[in-house]
């Protein structure tokens, strides 16, 4: 029974449950990183709550020795909202998949983001429905052949970060299952953000969509394909950071840094107008590198804080309610003994 946070280690967050993901699944790496980062956040273990929807990712809470809630498909943002409003002192982390969050749960996701409820959302994007055995998902590329699309899928995929930016999310980041250090940093950044923090984690489903992010994780090629974002730093990538991004009339262009000079390269700004972040969200391989890191981090009051402030204000203004006051208000009259 640990109430202090001092002694917490990764082991404190592990459960006895057998981990039931497929061997080789990217989910393992994410679990490990979360278990490593949680003990460092200065939060008592009992104040963590992990809430998930349904999917392979949905099993996550069972493997975290915290309070956990494996809810129903797509609705985790709503459960988490109800919890956080009532228990603002808890650190609420939501785990979801690309299907859970963007297919059945798309609406709850965009609403929680616009409300900016103080939650941390980790979206495991494997571009497939894993748990139901491999149908295409809302993030699968057009033409994907799966059991439900033998002639190839037709739906233009969502770019998850584009969707969440459309909803004016206050914190938007992306990381990769195979980049543990980067992931740890993103988790910490999310934790520090007051409001809804959304992290898309590219996650390999080695059973139904193996190698979907191979171009980003391939040790040799990844410097060419990853664009690591750093606030205040120019948008550089390539083996020797020799390539940069500039924008002309909203259109990104890859340029040779030597040619244009470092000063010409666009400097990343987490607080820039949303359209800039939207541009980054639209970057698609192979034409452009894939941005990794915090795209956007801006401040806006959190819904749960504001609601609880209203409660306090009402108490201040009218005094704490009691039943006598409650019953005796309204239009009343007395009937006397006759």
């Amino acid at each position: 029974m640990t109430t202090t946070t001092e002694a917490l280690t990764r082991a404190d967050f592990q459960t006895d449950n057998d981990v039931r993901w497929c061997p080789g699944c990217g989910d393992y790496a994410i679990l490990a990183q979360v278990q490593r980062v949680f003990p460092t956040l200065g939060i008592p273990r009992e104040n963590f709550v992990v809430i998930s929807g349904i999917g392979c990712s949905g099993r996550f809470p069972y493997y975290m020795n915290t309070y956990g809630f494996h809810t129903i498909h797509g609705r985790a943002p709503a459960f988490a909202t109800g919890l956080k409003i009532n228990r603002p002192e808890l650190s609420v982390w939501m785990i979801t998949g690309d299907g859970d969050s963007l297919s059945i749960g798309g609406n709850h996701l965009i609403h929680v983001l616009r409300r900016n409820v103080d939650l941390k959302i980790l979206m495991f994007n494997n571009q497939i429905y894993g748990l139901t055995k491999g149908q295409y998902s809302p993030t699968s590329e057009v033409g994907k052949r799966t059991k439900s699309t033998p002639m190839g899928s037709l739906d233009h995929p969502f770019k998850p970060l584009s969707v969440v930016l459309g909803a004016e999310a206050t914190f938007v980041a992306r990381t990769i299952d195979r980049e543990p250090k980067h992931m740890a940093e993103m988790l910490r950044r999310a934790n520090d953000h007051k409001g809804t923090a959304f992290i898309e984690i590219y996650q390999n489903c080695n059973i139904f969509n193996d190698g979907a992010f191979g171009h980003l994780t391939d040790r040799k090629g990844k410097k060419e394909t990853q664009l690591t974002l750093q606030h205040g730093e120019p948008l550089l990538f390539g083996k020797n950071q020799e390539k940069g991004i500039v924008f002309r009339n909203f259109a990104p262009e890859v340029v040779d840094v030597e040619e244009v000079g470092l000063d010409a390269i666009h400097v990343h700004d987490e607080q820039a107008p949303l359209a800039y972040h939207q541009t980054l969200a639209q970057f698609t391989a192979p034409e452009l590198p894939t941005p990794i890191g915090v795209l956007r981090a801006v401040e806006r009051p959190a819904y749960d804080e504001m609601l609880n402030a209203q409660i306090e204000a009402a108490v201040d203004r009218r005094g704490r309610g009691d039943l006598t006051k409650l019953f005796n208000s309204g239009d009343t009259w007395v009937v006397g003994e006759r």
Partner: protein
Amino acid sequence: MTQIVGETLDPPAAQQGAGEERESVVIRFAGDSGDGMQLTGSLFTHTAALVGNDLATLPDFPAEIRAPAGTLAGVSGFQLQFGSTKIFTPGDAPDVLVAMNPAALKRNTDALERGATIVVNVDAFTERALSRVGYDVNPLEDDSLSAFQVLEVKLSSMTIDAVEHVGLGRSDAERCKNFFALGLVYWMYGRPLKHTLDWIAGKFAKTPEYVEANQAALKAGYHYGETAEIFAHTYRVPAAQIEPGLYRKVTGNEATVMGFVTASQLSGLNLFLGSYPITPASDILHGLSNYKEYGVRTFQAEDEIAAVSAAIGAAFGGSLGLTTTRGPGVSLKGEAIGLATMIELPLIIANIQRAGPSTGMPTKTEQADLLQAVYGRHGESPTPVVAPASPTECFHMAIEAARLAITYMTPVMFLSDGYIANGAEPWLVPDPEDLEPIEVEFHTEVEGFHPYMRDPETLARPWVRPGTPGLEHRIGGLEKEALSGDVSYDPHNHEHMIKTRAEKIARMANSIPDAEVFGEEEGELLLIGWGGTFGALRAATMQAQRRGMKVSHMHLRYLNPLPRNVGPTLKRFTHVVVAELNNGQLRRLMRDEFLVDIQGLNKIQGLPFKVSEIMARIDELLA
């Protein structure tokens, strides 16, 4: 605003004695949406209450927000019954109809019985207005109303005359005509004006000319009655024998709001409402959002699924989770309610039923969501159901719903209906001290803890708030291992858990009261009802009993599980009839459970029962 029933408000002694005495009277005010009929009715109601009558009211809103003036769709009505005995319903048929325009007349004549009095604003019966609602001939000029006593009053023009001295514009002046009409009706029933005069003074304090005009119109209407001698009779409705105390007029929805706030106070839990607007449940959302100083958190969600899910999230956090809606919303919430059943957390789902199926007739009442409440989820997911029988009872049953949810760690369905939600009654304000606390014990003991260990009596599992050190655990919708709550696919464990969840709900019967039998404990006919049909059933039963018929009435507030005495009771009657505003839903549940050939008295018209409809069936069966 509290007033005391006393001498100052009594009508002039002279008049008190005048008029024919009536046990009860039914009045309906009807006019255009803009004519202020709801207000007029409310003011009459309040005066009746102050005079000491018992009463019941029912507003009848148009389906459209603002239907065009003068159309049938735009007619707004308010009916009330007041009397010197216990009043159970707003009345079958009005004794007096006040019709402010042809549309109001047309919409309401069918509701009248031979001999009723109709007060019409004859000024409004222009050719254009008549043709607008499809009257080819002026009904005041043919004999189509010959069964009634029609009083043609120039309400508009007399009002304009009466308030001329105030100097309002003509159309503003004319808008006072509802007070003229109210004054007239006050005179008919020997009612005092004081309360209404005071109300006007308070309401329009900032615009003295409105105070003057409206008061003048009210008085003018009253005096017109006195002087014009157009009434054959005036009536007197003496005060009722009412339990002394402080009263407050409440609608069902208002009582529901107070009930849930009270449950939260009695349990010491913060109340959380997750809701998505839908008429007529929205008023509960509106009401509760005004009680923030009671720690009530309201959340207007993006849809019903989010609303119920947030309420479950709140319950997981240790708050009292509530979600309010109407039928279509319940249809959407089924999956999440099933989850609450599995994770065994308290949750209240309040369904203010209206006429379905689908969008149906969303402004009309019905009781057709009972089978959905009991069976409307996949898998074996037993759900307790309670239903208040009257507007004021919503208060008590809301508390009961919370008590059962908390005590048994389960979702509970609270079934109200449009009829009681909008209907109003006087409510004897309780003393908070008299209300029983709801016991809540959050588990904190680490030793021996298992998430699914159970109270031996109620079978409830412990409620643990996240944040409690050492009790970290995980819940979810997959089948749980008994005791540990771990995911389990074990066949016998599943059967055990299914049976345990069912048994837990069945055991609720231990902690709910027996159903009251009104009348003899055996006899020829047992009338069974639930929800808002109470008043009509009780009134009919009393009428039949007075006529010496062996009829008893059992009204059920607990529908799943049923009280223990229901089965034995119904076997002591020759006939058992379940009366409900649906195609026979409680009847089905009871036939299955008791194998008794229960008959149905069913009305599916979006309207409440009339006492006479019930009497007709009683007569048919016992004649």
